[in-house]
C-alpha cells in the first residue's frame, strides 16, 4: 500500500464510517422497532433504545392459527417466494438464449436497446393494459398472473446483465467446441453456461430481489391471501385505524430474511460475478 498521511487516513476511515452508518442506521432502527414495546415506541420523547425487549410481534406474525394476522402474513411470504421464484426462473429461461444471441451477433444489438427502451416506461403507464390483459386471461389475483407481469420487468433486465457477462467469455472457446464437434446445446451446457455461472447467479439474485421488492403491480393485481405478496401484506399492517409501527417493522425484518439467506448462500458466486464484469451495464 502507498504511504498516506495521518490526515488522509483519518479522512478515509471517517468516510467509511459515515458510509456504513448511512447504510446500516435504517436497518438497525427497523430491528430495534421490531423488538420495542408499544409503550416505548409511543413515548415522548422517543425511546431510541427499548427499555424492555418485546418479541411478541414475531410470535404474532409467525403463526399458523387460522384467520390470524400470522396466517395471512405467512401466506404472503409464500406467495412472494413463488411469484419471485417463478418470475426469476422464467426470466433466466428467456434471457439466456436472447442474451447469448445478442452477445454473439453484434448485428442485432440494436434490438437490445429497443428492449431497454420499453424498460424505461414508468410502471403506471402499463398498469391499465396489463390489468385488462390479466383480466381477460383470468389471471388476476393469481401467482401465475403476477409472475407473468414480473417477467416483463425481469427479462429485459436479466438479458442486459447476462449479455455483458457473455461478452466476457471469449468466442474462440465456443469456436473450439464447435470444431470439436459439439452441438449448440452441448456447447452451452458444457462450456458457456458453466463459465457464465457467476454472472448467472448474480443475475438470478438481482432479478429475485427486484421481484421480491415490487409493490405497485402487486397492489393492483392481487386481492387476497391467494396471491397477495409480502410487500402488500406489510402495507396492510399499516392500514388499520391504529398502526402498530412495531408490527410493521417486524414484518419488514421477516420479509428481508429470505433474500438475505439466498444472498448468503450464493455469496461467493455473486461476488465473483460482480468482479468479473457481470454488472458493467
Amino acid at each position, binding site marked *: 500500500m502507498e504511504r498516506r498521511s495521518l490526515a488522509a487516513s483519518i479522512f478515509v476511515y471517517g468516510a467509511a464510517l459515515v458510509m456504513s452508518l448511512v447504510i446500516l442506521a435504517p436497518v438497525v432502527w427497523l430491528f430495534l422497532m421490531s423488538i420495542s414495546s408499544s409503550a416505548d415506541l409511543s413515548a415522548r420523547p422517543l425511546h431510541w433504545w427499548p427499555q424492555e425487549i418485546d418479541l411478541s410481534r414475531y410470535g404474532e406474525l409467525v403463526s399458523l392459527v387460522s384467520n390470524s394476522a400470522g396466517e395471512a402474513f405467512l401466506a404472503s411470504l409464500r406467495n412472494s417466494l413463488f411469484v419471485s421464484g417463478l418470475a426469476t426462473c422464467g426470466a433466466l429461461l428467456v434471457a439466456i438464449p436472447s442474451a447469448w444471441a445478442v452477445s454473439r451477433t453484434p448485428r442485432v444489438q440494436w434490438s437490445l436497446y429497443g428492449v431497454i427502451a420499453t424498460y424505461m416506461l414508468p410502471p403506471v403507464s402499463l398498469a391499465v393494459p396489463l390489468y385488462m390483459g390479466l383480466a381477460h386471461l383470468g389471471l388476476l389475483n393469481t401467482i401465475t398472473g403476477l409472475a407473468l407481469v414480473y417477467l416483463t420487468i425481469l427479462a429485459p433486465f436479466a438479458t442486459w446483465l447476462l449479455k455483458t457477462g457473455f461478452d466476457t467469455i*471469449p468466442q*474462440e472457446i465456443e469456436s*473450439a*467446441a464447435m*470444431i*470439436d*464437434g459439439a452441438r449448440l446445446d452441448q456447447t452451452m451446457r458444457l*462450456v458457456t453456461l458453466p463459465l457464465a455461472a457467476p454472472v448467472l447467479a448474480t443475475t438470478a439474485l438481482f432479478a429475485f430481489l427486484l421481484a421480491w421488492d415490487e409493490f405497485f403491480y402487486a397492489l393492483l393485481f392481487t386481492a387476497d391471501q391467494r396471491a397477495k405478496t409480502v410487500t402488500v401484506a406489510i402495507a396492510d399492517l399499516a392500514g388499520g385505524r391504529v398502526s402498530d409501527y412495531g408490527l410493521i417493522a417486524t414484518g419488514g425484518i421477516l420479509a428481508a430474511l429470505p433474500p438475505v439467506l439466498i444472498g448468503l448462500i450464493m455469496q461467493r458466486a455473486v461476488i465473483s460475478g460482480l468482479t468479473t464484469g457481470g454488472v458493467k451495464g
Partner: protein
Amino acid sequence: MSTLEIDAVTKRFGALETLKGVDITLESGEFLVLLGPSGCGKSTLLNIIAGLLEPSGGDIRIDGRSMRKVHPKNRDIAMVFQSYALYPNLSVARNIGFGLEMRKVPKAEREVAIRKAAEILQIEPLLERKPAELSGGQRQRVAIGRALVRDPKVFLFDEPLSNLDAKLRTEMRTELKRLHQKLKATIVYVTHDQVEAMTLATRIAVMREGQVEQIGTPREIYDNPASIYVAGFMGSPPMNLVEGRISDDGTRFQAEGGGCDFPTPANAIGGLTPGRTVIAGFRPEQLFPTPPAEAKAVTMEVEVVEATGAETLVIGHIGEQTIIASVKPDQAPEPGETVRLNFAPGNIRWFDPESGRALPNE
C-alpha cells in the same frame, strides 16, 4: 489428389474486401505457413478453411470434397487458437478428449488416445489439473493435444506461439517441427513472425492485402523474393534495397546519391536496360569488408554498430540511403568510419521501382 485446395477464395465484409481471390493447393504432409502483417487476411483465410466463416466466393476442398456449407465439425480439421481457447471448467484430460467425447468415442478408447497425446506432448502429470493451474507453455501443449487426438486431415494453427515469451516460443517452435516430422501431418499455420515461417514451413505463402504475394519454399522466398514487399518482410534484418540507375552503356549500376557502384551481372536480367531506374536488393550478410587494394562495390558511412553475438550489424548510409551490413564481430568498424564493402554480384535481386516486382531472369 491434394489434401487441401483453396480455390479462388474471396471474402467481403460489407464494402471491405478482405480476401481478393486466393489459390493455394496443399499436398498431404505439407506444412504451409500463411505469413503477413496483421490485416492481410491470413486469419480470415484460416477461419474460412476451418468453416468458422463462409467465403463470399470460391471454394475450399479437403480431399477433393467441397466444403461449401459444411459445418466445421464435419470438415475433419482441428484448430489451435492463439488464445488456446481451452475449456477452463474442464480438466486437462477432458479438454483433450472433448472432441472424441462429442463424437461418442467409447470411454476406454478415448482414454487410450488421451494418454498417447499426453505422452507425445509430455503433459501426462497434468491430466487431472484445470487449465488455470497450468503455465502458458503447458496450456499451449494441451491445446495442441486437443487437436492431436482427433487425428484430422488438416491441422490449423492460428498464431499459436505469439502469447509465449521468447525462450518458450523457440522451444515450442522446435517441438512443433519435431511433431510435424514425426506425424507427417498436413498443417496450415498462420503467423506474422518471419522467423517462425522460415523455420517451420515446407512452403510459405506471403500474403498482402488479401492476396498471395508469393508462395514457395522458405529458401526460394528468402533468396528470390518476388517483390520489394516480400524482400522487406523476410529476414531480420531485412534485405537492403538501394535505388539507382543503370549507366548509359548498360554495364554498371550506380546508386542514387553515390556510394554504391558495381558492374551489372553477366547473366542476363530482363529489364536492366541502359539509363533505367531500378532497385538493387542484397542481404546484409552478403556484404563483407574489403581491403583498400581490392575493388569495392559499396562505400558506407557507419552510424551505428550493434553486436548481436554471433554477428555484428553495421548500420550506415550510402549517399542518402540507409543500408545494413552483417559482419563478423572481429571485422566490425567503429561508428563514424567509412568502410568499403563488396559482395558477389550474382546474389543481387533487381526490382522495378514502379511495380515493386522483381525483374525476371532471362
